[in-house]
């Protein structure tokens, strides 16, 4: 068990392309940290640098307090689960799991005890004599996790471990991974491009984009208080709506004026925060779940009503998604499935202004 510290980590490839541009990150002992971001954001490179599979161009990586920049992977006391499992095809499940311990010359009884223990945690006790080819995707993933668990390393590294599984199995394995972490409590760094995985698994989520960290924080903080437009748009599904508009000082109160002349009042308690930006162009951000139908006896304060005609209606069962366009911007609203909605028919929607975000279109920072 150990802390992982990244100080000003840079990864530059031949030709001067920087995959990681000087990131700082502190991961606590026992913590489950998820690095999330789109393809090419540098998250996998960061993980591979922690593993020692990629050299760092500059900066320092410390595991358990000691700097490991020049230490080969085998001496870092880490275990890694790969996207396509990387099981040795010529070895049985037992041999695959025992390989790391065999190389480290553990006594046979100890190896057997550890493999049996990991097999019990992962419920793969009956598969130990099989070769990887005779296993399903989910079983292979368990074996790959087993291989990591038996080593009892300081840090677990997961590199998009669920990407090769089908949707149903992915949800199931997600729960398994969380369960395993709750059991073994090993410091874990987990890379994924799936924000749902990040939100559900992480103690803290690290959102990366273009080689830099956009924001670090617990999942709910990222959801409710994103600091950049990128984080606001990346976390949450369906993604947050962004509508260009203007912040107008309407005498007593601040108003957000959107295209089509829609005027939405800014709640009084947030007016002070935005006062300095009055009169400027802004991006109005609101999540689909905060753009709803008007409910009878709705006690939510700061609801601002406006009319829109959805072009596409998507009934999802537990909710219905309405898609409409506001001067070229696609907007998604999330309404109760009982709400009558038909394409092309105008209806009244309510924006919960206490949940909205205002973004500076130049810096893309949340105001």
């Amino acid at each position, binding site marked *: 068990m150990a802390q992982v510290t990244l100080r000003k980590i840079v990864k530059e490839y031949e030709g001067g392309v920087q995959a990681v541009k000087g990131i700082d990150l502190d991961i606590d002992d026992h913590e489950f940290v998820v690095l999330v971001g789109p393809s090419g954001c540098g998250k996998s490179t960061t993980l591979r640098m922690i593993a020692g599979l990629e050299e760092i161009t500059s900066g320092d990586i410390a595991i358990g307090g000691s700097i490991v920049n020049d230490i080969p992977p085998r001496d870092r006391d880490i275990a890694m689960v790969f996207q*396509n499992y990387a099981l040795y095809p*010529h070895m049985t499940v037992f041999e695959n799991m025992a390989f*790391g311990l065999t190389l480290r010359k553990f006594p046979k009884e100890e190896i057997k005890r550890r493999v049996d223990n990991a097999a019990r945690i992962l419920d793969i006790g009956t598969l130990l004599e099989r*070769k990887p*080819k005779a296993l399903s995707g989910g079983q292979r993933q368990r074996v790959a996790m087993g*291989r990591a668990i038996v080593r009892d390393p300081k840090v677990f590294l997961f590199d998009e471990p669920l990407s090769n599984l089908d949707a149903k199995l992915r949800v199931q394995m997600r729960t398994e991974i969380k369960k395993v972490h709750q059991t073994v409590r090993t410091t874990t760094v987990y890379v994924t491009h799936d924000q749902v995985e990040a939100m559900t698994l992480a103690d803290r989520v690290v959102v990366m984009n273009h080689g830099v960290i956009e924001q670090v924080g617990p999942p709910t903080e990222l959801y409710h208080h994103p600091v950049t437009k990128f984080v606001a748009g990346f976390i949450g599904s369906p993604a947050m709506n962004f509508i260009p508009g203007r912040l107008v000082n309407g005498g007593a109160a601040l108003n957000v004026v959107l295209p089509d002349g829609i005027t939405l009042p800014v709640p009084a308690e947030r007016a002070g925060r935005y006062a300095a930006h009055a009169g400027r162009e802004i991006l109005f951000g609101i999540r689909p779940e905060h753009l709803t139908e008007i409910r009878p006896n709705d006690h939510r304060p700061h609801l601002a009503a406006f009319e829109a005609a959805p072009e596409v209606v998507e009934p999802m069962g537990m909710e219905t998604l309405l898609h409409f366009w506001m001067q070229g911007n696609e907007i998604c609203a999330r309404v109760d499935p009982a709400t009558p909605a038909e394409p092309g028919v105008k209806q009244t929607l309510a924006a919960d202004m206490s949940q909205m975000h205002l973004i500076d279109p130049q810096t893309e920072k949340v105001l």
Partner: protein
Amino acid sequence: MADGSAIAAGRVPATAGQPRTGTLKRMARRRSTLAFLMALPLLAVIAGLVIYPFFYAIELSMLNKRMTRFVGIDNFTFLLGRETFQLVIFQSVLFAVTAVIAKALIGFVLAHVLHALPAKGQRKWRGMLLVPWVIPPAVSTLAWWWLFDPSYSAFNWMLAVFGAGPVPWLGDAGWARFAVILVNTWYGAPFFMIMYLAALKSVPDQLYEAAAIDGATGIQKLRYVTLPMMRNIISITVLFSLIVTFANFDIVRILTNGGPQDRTHLFGTYAFQVGIQSGDIPLGAAVSLFMFPLLAVFAVLILRGVNQRTKEGL
């Protein structure tokens, strides 16, 4: 049961009544028939160039020198009792096994070196290293012959520079055997290299990364990841090379012609000498047939391993 046979019997006249061309058409439409028909030209070539000569060689090997009388296995027993032939068996096995091991080892090392090179330089080196394999062996062996030639030997000239005496490359039995093995290795190693390189490229990088994290050193990665992943390719390449090396003719024929004192003869060159040059075709056929059981044993052993691993999904 009675009902069933009654129905079957009832159907017979209906099918029998169809014209014969219908059955032929149906047969032609079946995929297996079509596949067989398309493979027929190749089968005919194999039958004409392999199966017929094989059985003809068996027939020849059981005739007397004038090919007028059936002598059973007399030619084989005669050969086995002859000291020269015993030497040929020993030399063929020595030549094939040593050359194949040398080719396999050199090919393995070269493949690793090439694999470690950056992709840009790799193609150039791969092309250059393949040159020995693409030059017709008769031509390249002539060049080697010049290098070994007692009067003009470039090797001896180089040895003289370092003060070492001339080596009778093709005049001494030991050196001559070394020379033919060396030339065969030079010619055949690139084939191993290219096969191994293909096998190396098919090993996923993540297996090496997983092994590195599991604690494997470079040698351990080779032993526990590379070699097991390449086993089938190694086996098949070794088998193929054994067959070709055992049956080698041109290198020995050009370099030493079997000499000195028959000490470098292989099955192929000895069969040629006995059968064509000395005019005893049945005895020559018997010599060449000796290769068959030897190679069959190798083939069975190696292919059994390959089959087993294929079943296990490797």
